[in-house]
């Protein structure tokens, strides 16, 4: 059992710069939580506070109900995997994986069994006598994970572990982490700035910006029902299109274009009559056929889909992900309609949705 509670965590540095504001999170046993956000949003700082590598300025950290806010890193029973692997170059893979246990003066036979078991899980058995510089980036990252596994910690902490890998290897290692999580059923806190990693790995995602938590939820919740414009544009690739519009006469009027609304949407937006509303439309929620016209800027053919970058109305930029291979030329007009729309209050940037949602 490893339940982690982060209660009202703040991080204020000596120079009064605040990196994390009132961070609250309950991590259930065996849950994989991904902290995602742009560089400098405080996600790594939060992870380092959990690991004990940074002091917690305010708030409490509880592991299985025990307050470990002031506990030193070595007593927290957590293992951290770093972006740069942090392997010892002069040691073999076996020695690297055994190192933390050797320091604890555990029985060498016990260490051996743990290292072999971890190597088996990570498919590293054939590499145990090699040095780190003889391995690929993905294998090195697996060694770093192995070093964490042999400790059998209560919580695994991953700090952007895939950032040093190329795209193909990143995808493969991501799948391995997912399989590892399913196999170990371990509680994992995982930091990344890559929203694809977050969406594919997480049981729940914590989306952060400027030290504040923007939304906590399942990947689908963040994708489908973003709390605000930040989450809406950060989650999803290509990002959600955002249009400044005004709600008038039952339609949303933008610069040179308008979007028809269903009766439900009209009633939802009724309090905003003649007021500004930010309209959000995901590129994949745009389909061919309809009254709107995209003037094509350029096409990116992806095989099954085509990304059409262009403009609508008075030169408002839009990206649409249309089905199939498209041979549109620059300047062509492509009729489209919006399958799904998101609405945001321009003052608060929060999503406008029914109270029940």
């Amino acid at each position: 059992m490893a339940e982690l509670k982060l209660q009202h965590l703040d991080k204020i540095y000596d120079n009064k710069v605040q990196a994390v504001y009132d961070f609250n999170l309950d991590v259930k046993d065996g849950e994989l939580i991904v902290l995602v956000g742009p560089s400098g949003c405080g996600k790594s700082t939060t992870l380092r506070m959990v690991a004990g590598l940074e002091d917690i300025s305010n708030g409490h950290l509880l592991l299985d109900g025990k307050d470990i806010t002031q506990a030193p890193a070595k007593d927290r029973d957590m293992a951290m995997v770093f972006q740069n692997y942090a392997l010892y170059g002069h040691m073999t893979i076996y020695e690297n994986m055994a190192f933390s246990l050797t320091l604890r003066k555990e029985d060498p036979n016990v260490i051996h069994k743990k290292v072999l078991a971890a190597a088996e899980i990570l498919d590293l058995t054939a590499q145990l006598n090699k040095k780190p510089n003889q391995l690929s980036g993905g294998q090195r990252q697996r060694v770093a994970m192995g070093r964490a596994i042999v400790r059998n910690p209560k919580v695994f902490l991953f700090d952007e572990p895939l950032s040093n890998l190329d795209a193909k290897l990143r995808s493969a290692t991501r799948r391995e982490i997912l399989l590892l999580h399913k196999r170990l059923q371990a509680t994992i806190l995982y930091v990344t700035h890559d929203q694809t990693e977050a969406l594919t790995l997480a049981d729940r995602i914590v989306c952060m910006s400027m030290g504040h938590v923007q939304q906590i939820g399942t990947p689908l919740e963040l994708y489908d029902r973003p709390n605000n414009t930040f989450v809406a544009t950060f989650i999803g690739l290509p990002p959600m299109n955002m249009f400044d519009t005004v709600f008038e006469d039952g339609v949303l009027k933008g610069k040179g274009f308008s979007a028809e609304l269903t009766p439900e949407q009209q009633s939802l937006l009724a309090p905003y009559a003649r007021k500004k509303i930010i309209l959000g439309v995901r590129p994949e929620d745009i389909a061919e056929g309809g009254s709107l016209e995209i003037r094509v800027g350029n096409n990116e053919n992806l095989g099954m889909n085509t990304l059409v970058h262009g403009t609508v109305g008075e030169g408002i930029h839009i990206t649409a992900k249309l089905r199939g291979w498209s041979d549109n030329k620059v300047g062509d007009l492509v009729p489209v309609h919006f399958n799904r729309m998101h609405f945001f209050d321009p003052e608060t940037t929060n999503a406008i949705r029914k109270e029940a949602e």
Partner: protein
Amino acid sequence: MNEEYTRLDRMRYTKNTSSSRLAILAIVFDVLFFISLYKSDVGNYYYTILIGASIIYNLVFLLATFLASEGVKGYQRNYTWLLLALACGQIVRIFIYPVQGHAAKVSGAAVIGDGQFIFMIICLAASAVCLVGAALINWRKSKALSDHIASLEAGNA
């Protein structure tokens, strides 16, 4: 996995540090020996071809012992013979400079005094003991490891 199997299997991934460290300790004793030998300055007693040979042998000994200490780390059985040969060399050396120098007199005094004589013999003997120890441990471990690997290859894991 029983304890004995684990102990043997561990050798597949760990170095033979006990043999290696004993070989390095043999080098340390040898260094103490030649520091003691070369610091003596008794007229022109040492200006012979023998001292030249001694210096060259010391260099060869240091290099060969270090090479053997690295070799035994990987359980290479052939280095056992090299270590034993070097141990024999250390025993033989006892009967060259310490004994001859102790027996030689310059202006009525022994070239190597009693205290220095005993110290040099202890150094060479200790060096030889370390080398023999390193050789025996390496022989035993390398044999155990090769038997274990043969057993694994035979599918007895």
